[in-house]
Structure formats: C-alpha cells, structure tokens
C-alpha cells in the first residue's frame, strides 16, 4: 500500500464516519456539544498515552472516550440541574478539560509522545509510518485500521439504531410517548461522537474533527432536511471534501488537516450560494 493511498483512505474513513454522526448532531442542535467533546477528550488521551506508552492500544483509547461522555454529563448537570445557560455550561466545561489536557501533556512531556501541535491539528501525514505488527508481519498503518473500524462501528450503530435515532432527533416528546428513551439515545450518540473524536484525534486533531462533524452535515441540511438523504449527502460531502482537501494540500505541501477543513468550508459556501440563488430565482 502506498503512503498516499493510506493517508487518503484514513481521511475518507474518518470523514465519512464523522459526517454521518454529524448529521444527527445538526438535527439535534447539539453540534457545540460535539465541539466540546472533541476538546474534552484531551486529558483522557494524555492519560491513555501515559499508561499505554504506545499508539496501538485501542482499549486504552476507548477508555479515553469516557472522558468525552463525562463532559456531556457535566454539561447536562450544569445546564439542567444548576441552571447555568447551556452555552456557558459548554464553554466552561470544555475549556477547563482542554486546559487540563494541555497541562498534563506538558507535565509528562518526556514520558508522553504527544505535543501541542499534534493536539491542535493532528499528524495525518505520519499515518503511513505508524504501522501495526501482528505475529511478525506488518499489517499496515494503525490509523487506517482504527479509522476503518470506526467507520464500521458508525455504520452498524446507524443501521441498528436508525429508528430510535430518527424519532429522538426530530421530536423528543413524540419519541418519549412511543417509549423511546431520548436520554439513552442521546448518551449513546455522544459516546459514538466521543469514540470518533478519540480515533480521529491523531490524524486531524481536536478542532478540525469539528469541521468533519459539522460541515458536511450542514451542507447536506441545506439541500434536504429529511434524515435519510441528509445522511447520504453528508457522507458524500465528507468524502468529496476530504479528497479535495487532501489533493490540494499534497499539491501545495501544506497541512492536510487544514486543507480538508478549508475545503469543507469552501464546499459549504458553494452549496450555500447555489441554494440561495435557486431560492430567489
């Protein structure tokens, strides 16, 4: 497998997984919670790195995802029980956890192979060099495997939970009447977002994963507000944006993650312009 293909596939797998989850976040008006989770997992990741001393320990990283779920629980408590405005609850929680993460990484800098740059924009260009060896045989880049597993997880989750997700996304009260546990679906979705963030973290960093979550889904929403076409379009836009971004970054030799986020933004702006014009004409 060529390095280029490994990077491109990792980017595509990550982008599609995030885009599908992002569709639900957009519908539930919870994209900022997704943003908060992506920042909040940092202390979990720092601890996972410290304890596992390697990048291949998947269980460890799923443990780190728990911190993301913890953050959503804290946000819920702040806004529902302690009556803090929801935007302020989000802002307070994620900045504190993210700051804690940065401090931990700096504190353990000689023991943890992670630096602030990686945290902020990932190192997808290094994906081909971190390979996984099983029984003496190289199995290819770890990140490719983990993003592939992520995509599989997201697809299984979406197919099996489709009805519950659909109901609880559009009409919470109706879903509650039908006996669909809105809280449970929320928590499961946030857990998935958390896992996706942790797995994408190494390749695209904490903030750009937000672009992957939000931009394709928002672009899709401009075209259709029905769940099924929206998910499909979001996946498509995730794919096209990440491919375009990767190609441009490779051409210009600049940050791949930055290129992907930029192209996702440009793509949104284009679709926005087209839908605006077609509406007025």
């Amino acid at each position, binding site marked *: 497998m060529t390095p280029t293909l490994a990077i491109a596939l990792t980017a595509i797998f990550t982008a599609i997984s995030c885009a599908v989850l992002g569709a639900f976040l957009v519908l539930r008006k919870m994209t900022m919670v997704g943003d908060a989770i992506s920042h909040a997992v940092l202390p979990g990741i720092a601890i996972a790195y410290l304890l596992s001393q390697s990048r291949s320990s998947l269980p460890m990283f799923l443990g780190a995802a728990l911190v993301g779920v913890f953050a959503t629980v804290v946000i819920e408590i702040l806004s529902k029980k302690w009556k803090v405005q929801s935007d302020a609850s989000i802002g307070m929680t994620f*900045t*504190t956890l*993210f700051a804690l993460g940065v401090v931990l990484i*700096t504190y353990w800098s000689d023991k943890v192979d992670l630096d602030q740059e990686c945290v*902020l924009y990932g190192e997808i260009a290094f994906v081909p060099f971190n390979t996984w060896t099983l029984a003496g045989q190289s199995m290819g880049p770890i990140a490719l495997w983990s993003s592939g597993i992520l995509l599989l997880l997201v697809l299984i989750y979406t197919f099996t939970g489709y009805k519950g997700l659909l109901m609880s996304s559009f009409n919470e009260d109706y879903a509650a009447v039908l006996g669909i546990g809105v809280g449970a679906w929320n928590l499961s979705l946030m857990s998935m977002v958390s896992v996706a963030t942790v797995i994408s973290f190494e390749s695209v960093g904490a*903030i750009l994963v937000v672009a992957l979550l939000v931009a394709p889904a928002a672009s899709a929403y*401009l075209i259709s507000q029905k769940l099924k076409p929206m998910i499909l379009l979001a996946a498509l836009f995730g794919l096209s944006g990440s491919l375009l971004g990767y190609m441009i970054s490779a051409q210009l030799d600049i940050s791949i993650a*930055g290129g992907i*986020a930029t192209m996702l*933004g440009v793509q949104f702006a284009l679709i926005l312009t087209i839908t605006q014009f077609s509406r007025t004409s």
Partner: protein
Amino acid sequence: MFDPVFIKVLLGTLLLASSSAVVGAFSFLKGESLVGDAIAHALLPGVVLAFILGDGRHPGYLIIGALIAGLIAHYGIAFIEQRTKLKSDTAVSLVLSTFFGFGILLMSYVQRTGQGQQAGLERFLLGKAAAITMVDLYVFTGLALLLLLGAALFYKGFQLMTFNEDFAAAIGLPTGTIRFAFTVLTVLAVTVGIQTVGVVLMAALLITPSAAARSWTSSLPRMLLLAALFASAAALGGTFISAALPKMPTGPWIVLVLGFFGFSSLILAPEKGWLARRRRATSNRNKTQRENLLKLLYGAEERAGEPVAMTAEAMVDAREQHYEGLTKTLRNLKKEFLVVERPDGFALTDLGRIEGRRVVRLHRLWELYLTERLGMAADHIHPQAETMEHVITPEIEALIVKELGNPEVDPHQSPIPYEED
C-alpha cells in the same frame, strides 16, 4: 521572580484578562457566549494573513487582521442564521472549525516557506504570555484600557440590548449601531485575550468569569466587577504557577484556575450555589415532613376525641407511603418537645398539639377558600391544600380568616380548629 519584566507581564496579563471578562459578561448574559468562541477561532486566519502580508512583528497589523477576520466570522454566522434553516449552534461551530482549519493551513504555509519568526505565530494557538514583547504589552494594555472605556461609554446601551433588545429598539436606541459597537468590542477583546490564553481557550476568558460572578450576584455592575476580579485573580494565579513550575504553559494554567473559580462558585455560592439550593430543598422537605407528622397525630386525636399515641409503623401505614427519614423526623420532634415517646408509640405534647392544629387549620381554611372564592369543586381541592398548608404565613392566614368571615367548618363539614384563647 520579581524582576521588572515579570511585573510588567503580570500587570499586562491582569488588564488583558479583566477587560475580556467585562466584554464577555454582556455576551454571557445575552446567551451568545459561544459566538465569542467562534470569533476567537476565526481570528487565526486573519492574524496569520496579517503576518504574511504585513509586517509580522507589528501588533497594528495583527489587530487589523484580527478585526477583519472577526467581523467576517460574526456576519457570516448572522447570515447563515438568517438566510438558511440551519440553527445557530451549527452556524457557530461551522464557522469556528472551518475558519480555524484555514488558519492552520495558512500557518503550515508560513512554516514551510520558513519565515523564521513563526514562533511568534504559534503563541496565538495556546497563548504564551512570556513571549509578549514590550511593544505588544504597551499596545495591548492600551487596547484593554480602551475596551474598559468603551464598555463604560456604551454601558446603558449594552445593558438594554442584553436584557431586552425589542424594548431598546422601541425607545429609539440605535440598536444597529450598538450591536456593531458590541461586535467590534468583542473582536478587540478576543484579540487582546488571545495574547494570554490563545484562540483555543479564549472562550474560558469570555465565559467562565461571568458564570462564576453570576452565581454570587444579580446586579449587573457588581457582576462586571466580580467577573473582572475573578479573571484577574486567575491571570495572577496562572502566571505564578507557570513561572514557578518548569516548562508550564501560562494560558492553560490561567484557564484551569479560572475553571476552578467557576466550578467552585457554582457549588459554593450562597443562595444560587448548588449546596445552598440543596440545603434549601432539604430544609423545605424536612419542614413538610414534620408538619405532616404533627397533622397526622392531631387528626388521630380528633377522631378519638382524646390524646392517643401512634407507632411509627402505623404512621407509615396511615400516610400510605414510606417515610424517608421518619425516625429522624420523630427524633427531631422529640428533641423540640413537640412529641413524646410512650410505650404504645408517639403522642403530641401541648406544644405539638398547637402546631398540628395550626397545620390542620390551614389545610381546611385553604380548602374552603378554594371552593368559596375560587369556585373549585370540592373533590379537587385536597392536593392543593396539601401543598399550601406548609406555605401560608400567619399574616395570610389572618387575611383568609377575615375574608371568609371566621368560618366554622370546611367544605367537607370538618370543624376548623382555632386556638381557644
């Protein structure tokens, strides 16, 4: 540690932190604080472009670049909110992440072309107070003073806009102008703030001081002052910690200290804090439980026509529910000489009888008031009275008695027990 440079950095950090906290307080109250977060992230491409196109070292270019990028981000969010069906959270996170991504792209370009001073750019990501030059310090301190002045000048307008925008427009305030001034001030506050904590953690400087201050006071001027104080204290604490520990970043430490203030205020503050509210809820529950027990005993006496005792089990049965902390309530009642424990159970003392009679009286008075004056059906009034009997004060009781003309019986023909004096 106390060399002049450290002192100057400290003073600068104090001003920067408190001025962004004051501006952040208004957007906090408006419920738009995450827009500030988006603007902070969106400044990155502006700052980097200013660095590429202009003189990277000059703070003036940075401010102009930041101002332009911040305004574009703000109006971009407003456009998406108004012209599409997307909700505001999506608009905010979309602008935040894609602008930031573009900034990262530009930064990697600067890095690749090897413009030596890129170290100066990295400080905008997570802040690096130590890297602030003296020129920066003077410029940004001046800007911070300007911000405080601006907030003071527009105080009335911001206040009205924050609490009731329609009203502000109705009394003829130029809301468009005020809104623009506010946006410019926010962008400048963020530009100033990112000198210390960077774009990623800027939201903390805008939001957390206000969230902390809000739980201590409800008055706007006091809240602004407190927010500025919390931000300054955090800037102080963070700067000291990062100076004392090797390799420690200043920005994240300021944010951590701020988070500590924020969360502990939410827990500990009197009245609005979580502990205080829990204590109030517990004491209300205790009061209700005590009064219900006394009422139960009084009712048993009334039926029997003589003082009787009830066992704890009988009390649980009579209320048809399990009494949480029944034994504790009984113990407290005993301690206050409201009940006595006898071999056959618990009985009212004279003092307890007065108290029990009062609760029963309030219950029956309220039932009568609901049927007589509010026209409710007699079979709907009991649950209402169950709540009100614990709430009615002696003054209101007197008014109800007077209003109903010293009634003798309630709607169910049970006597209303007055004190014989």
